[in-house]
């Protein structure tokens, strides 16, 4: 799988790393049960701080796309279809980006989603 980081982009480097993994999962470049490179290795490989990589991996863990296990590293989870889930997460990010561009606050975005959930 391919990790791409552009220091000139407005998106934080950790988020760019997470986006690379989400893209790879969505494309099927990496499957359930496969291990991602160790954080220190990836940091060395890209020439970024190891904490940057860890932030990216933590984000993916919070999104339920990977598991972090002591001694084993980061492993792509089998929960739901990871490719579909990755696409879902990307969709959520787009919603948030669009809503913020329109000037919505976090509370207003949450209200938007709750209204949608209540309506179905």
């Amino acid at each position, binding site marked *: 799988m391919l990790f791409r980081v552009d220091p000139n982009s407005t998106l934080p480097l950790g988020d760019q790393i997470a986006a690379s993994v989400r893209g790879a999962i969505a494309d099927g470049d990496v499957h*359930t049960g*496969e291990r991602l490179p160790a954080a220190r290795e990836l940091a060395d490989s890209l020439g970024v701080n190891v904490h940057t990589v860890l932030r990216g991996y*933590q984000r993916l863990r919070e999104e339920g796309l990977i*598991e*972090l296990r002591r001694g084993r590293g980061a492993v792509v989870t089998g929960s739901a279809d990871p490719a579909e889930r990755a696409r879902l997460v990307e969709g959520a990010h787009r919603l948030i980006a669009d809503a913020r561009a329109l000037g919505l606050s976090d509370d207003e975005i949450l209200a938007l989603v709750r209204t949608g959930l209540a309506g179905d």
Partner: protein
Amino acid sequence: MMPNDATPSKPPSGIRLRGAALTMLPFTVAAVVCTVVYLALRERLPDPVAIHFGSSGEADDFSGRGTVPWVLLAVNLGLGVLFSVMTYLSAMPARAQRTMVAAGFAVAGLLGHLFTAVLFANADVADARAVTLPMDQLAIALGVALVAGAAGWALASLGTPPEPEPAKEPGPARRLPLAEGETASWSRVTASPALPVIGAALLLAGLVLALLELWAAALPLLLSAVLLFAFSGVRVTADRRGVVLSLTLVPGLRRTITLSRIERAVNRPVSCFAEFGGWGYRVRPGRSGVVLRSGDALALQLGSGREFVVTVDDAATAAALLNTLIDRRGRPGEH
């Protein structure tokens, strides 16, 4: 180091559990079969029971009848736990698990057959010293192991994603579009389908020799099996440093081909035996490399004129990235 995160509330990955369960299954079956056979034959068994036989087929070691079912249970379930823990910890993708599962089925088949053959040999014999077990039981047990291994392989193949299409011809020296200042890292694990099979075969052979108490011969085979399993997975990384190869099970062991040594990278199909004479780390006149299977490979043309090859999927992307980074290296002002 990765953060200490036990995530106790999250269930383990389904694929890893599936692999562990599939490897535990044959040993559980062997344990059940041995126990059932023992219970059925118990009244007809002598006490003590003959449990070991020399090459002539005559009994030369004995055990109290009451302890026999517990020992059989311990060996079967103990080996099952060992195999399933190894499968779980290795976190292999579903396709690569097939070899471990097949090995588990083969070992369980071998031992299950031998154990039940010993029990039947003891049945209706008044004195355990008169019990015999002919050597052809060993041959039959190996046959059972082969059939069981094949069954395990077939079972583990159900529902696994198909092999990716191998490259048909060498690709051109492509480039990966990278923005000014942007950098990238390509990483993949390449696993050998063959080395674990050989490892499993050596493990079986080592176990058979150990059962015959030929420890001097058994030990090197068992050690070789461990080595082969250790070398069966390699992580390949292509980045600004060049190409880094490291063992998945022993990450400290690695080999780096620095970017400055590489002139050009392409992907091309490789034939292990025709070009390199086998699997593993191979050296030939003019070329060397880590060749774990035939098929798509990353081929590095080095400044020295030699070629270094690594068999790995999606080598085209790795090659494109390397060529872009090599171009950058050549430009003034770039590192």
